[in-house]
């Protein structure tokens, strides 16, 4: 308590050095380096990679999975994950378009109903996990089958028509496009704007709000959080609902873009989304998560898919690269973690 203050002259360079070191030790640092290296490599091999058209296209496909990854980041930070997002991605547009095509509801109302159904699915997931104490792996695996099965059963396996969407204001709000820098410039879809806005909002929620503090505490040490009066069960239920609704939102956007609500779409997306999130440095066991990292992870996986085709690698080899990236990123994060713990 009576220690003299350290001399400022000595302290200043120390803090500058440790600021650099802190930046390198951040979980987002590895994915950032990888992204920059990847983009440079692709551009050198095939300059078309950096063209406005290609970037515009790549970003469009990016956001549909990216939206789910944003919500999944918060859920995984709270220590849970959701395997049912891919099936909700396929099921929700089926619900919306079936209701609209039957002429019972207007498109905006059908949209709200589809989101409400997703809300309910997420709530059921959350209740099974928090009330019955069943691991989220099993709960959401069961839900995946129930939701996918319902989508196939309701539609007899046939895609729903969506082509009346053209003159709907809702469709233009969700996926309308415009050009930045006049015709021939960068083509930007509304879905990208949604992704950017939601990334900012969820980053703020995770790092700047009381609820975000609760999310991190719930995943980090739920016993300690409960002892301090944090409603950990409610936090998890809210995040399961968020993840479901985001999957529905992304699925609806996708169905308008490709003009089809296919009950099979989204198959396997859950694993790709989880891959995006962990590449970005969010820990599968909870407690630490980063929206910035997830955005980087999303870009890495989608630009990789786009880039390896452009540089002439067979598209079927895509999964080899994804698997290798996941493994090396996990090794990097584990190494940083170990060094971080040893250094203190």
């Amino acid at each position, binding site marked *: *308590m009576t*220690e003299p203050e*350290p001399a400022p002259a000595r302290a200043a360079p120390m803090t500058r050095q440790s600021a650099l070191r802190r930046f390198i030790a951040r979980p987002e640092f590895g994915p950032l380096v990888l992204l920059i290296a990847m983009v440079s490599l692709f551009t050198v091999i095939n300059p078309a990679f950096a063209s406005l058209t290609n970037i515009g296209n790549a970003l469009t496909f990016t956001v549909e999975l990216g939206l789910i990854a944003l919500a999944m980041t918060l859920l995984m930070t709270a220590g849970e994950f959701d395997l049912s997002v891919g099936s909700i991605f396929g099921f929700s547009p089926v619900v919306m378009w079936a209701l609209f095509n039957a002429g019972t509801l207007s498109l905006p109302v059908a949209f709200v109903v589809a989101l409400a159904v997703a809300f309910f699915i997420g709530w059921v997931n959350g209740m099974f996990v928090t009330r019955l104490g069943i691991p989220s792996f099993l709960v959401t695996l069961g839900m995946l089958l129930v939701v996918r099965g319902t989508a196939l059963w309701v539609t007899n396996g046939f895609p729903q028509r969506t082509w009346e969407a053209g003159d709907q204001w809702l469709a233009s709000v969700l996926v309308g496009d415009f050009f930045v820098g006049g015709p021939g410039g960068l083509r930007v879809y509304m879905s990208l704007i949604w992704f950017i806005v939601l990334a900012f909002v969820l980053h703020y*929620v995770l790092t*700047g*709000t*009381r*609820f*975000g*503090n609760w999310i*991190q*505490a719930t*995943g*980090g*040490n739920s*016993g*300690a*959080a*409960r*002892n*301090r*009066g*944090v409603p950990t069960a409610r936090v998890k239920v809210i995040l399961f609902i968020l993840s479901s609704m985001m999957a529905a939102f992304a699925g609806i956007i996708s169905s308008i873009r490709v003009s089809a609500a296919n009950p099979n779409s989204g198959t396997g997306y859950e694993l790709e989304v989880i891959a995006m999130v962990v590449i970005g440095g969010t820990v599968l066991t909870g*407690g*630490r998560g980063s929206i910035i990292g997830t955005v980087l992870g999303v870009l890495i996986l989608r630009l990789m898919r786009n880039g390896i085709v452009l540089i002439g690698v067979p598209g079927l080899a895509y999964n080899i690269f994804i698997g290798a990236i996941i493994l090396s990123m996990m090794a990097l994060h584990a190494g940083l973690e170990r060094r*971080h*713990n040893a250094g*203190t």
Partner: protein
Amino acid sequence: MDDANVPLVEMRQIEKFYGRVHALHDVNLTIKRGEIVGLLGDNGAGKSTLIKVLSGAVPYTSGQIRIKGREVTLRSTNDAIDSGIETIYQDSALVPQLSIARNLFLGRELRKGSALLDRLDLDRMNEVAAELLKRVGISKNIPPTTPIGSLSGGERQAVAIARAMYFDSDLIILDEPTNNLGVAETQGVLRFVREARDSGHSCIFIAHNIHHVFQVVDRMVVMRRGTIVADDISPKTSTIQDVEDVITGEQIAV
């Protein structure tokens, strides 16, 4: 009602069943203001059930609890915290991934701006945390943004105790606070406990190491098979051997 002669906590005829297991049987315990009570007993004697009841973590089957003379029902940990009871569990006091400041205010976060934005006042939280760290004497080179995971065991206990003191808890329950700590760190924790008492907080101190308990408590309470078998053993007039005999049941009382 709030005068100094009224005991801080009075537990009367507390009974607790876990299914058919009779975990607490006719427990009567009084804690006065500004005293450190050592709670001792072998594994399964009922110590942890007793503190869980007092911290609102588990409901009791029957009995009464009075705090400062007023009867209370403790249905949740929030009820207990609101009544001024803060429990520091050995493994679940702090979140390792969160910073010192975020841990200090966990569940009681400071916010600013509109409630709708739910915005943390991180500047203020860090400021208060730095102040508090200085007060407990571990400020040296530890900024309040340091994650708890990179602190030593003794520093973590210090943060947890500092938190209880900051929120002005009347009763701080310490569950095995000296477990897995080195000699110097243990002395540090015992010093914090005394400081807490000297600034008017009461403490319940639970530890397996009777030597640590002896160094710091005003009196000792011993539990055996779910009930209190001795409730006023003074460390001044008894030996460690006496207390051990009471814990194991070799001796009825001191």
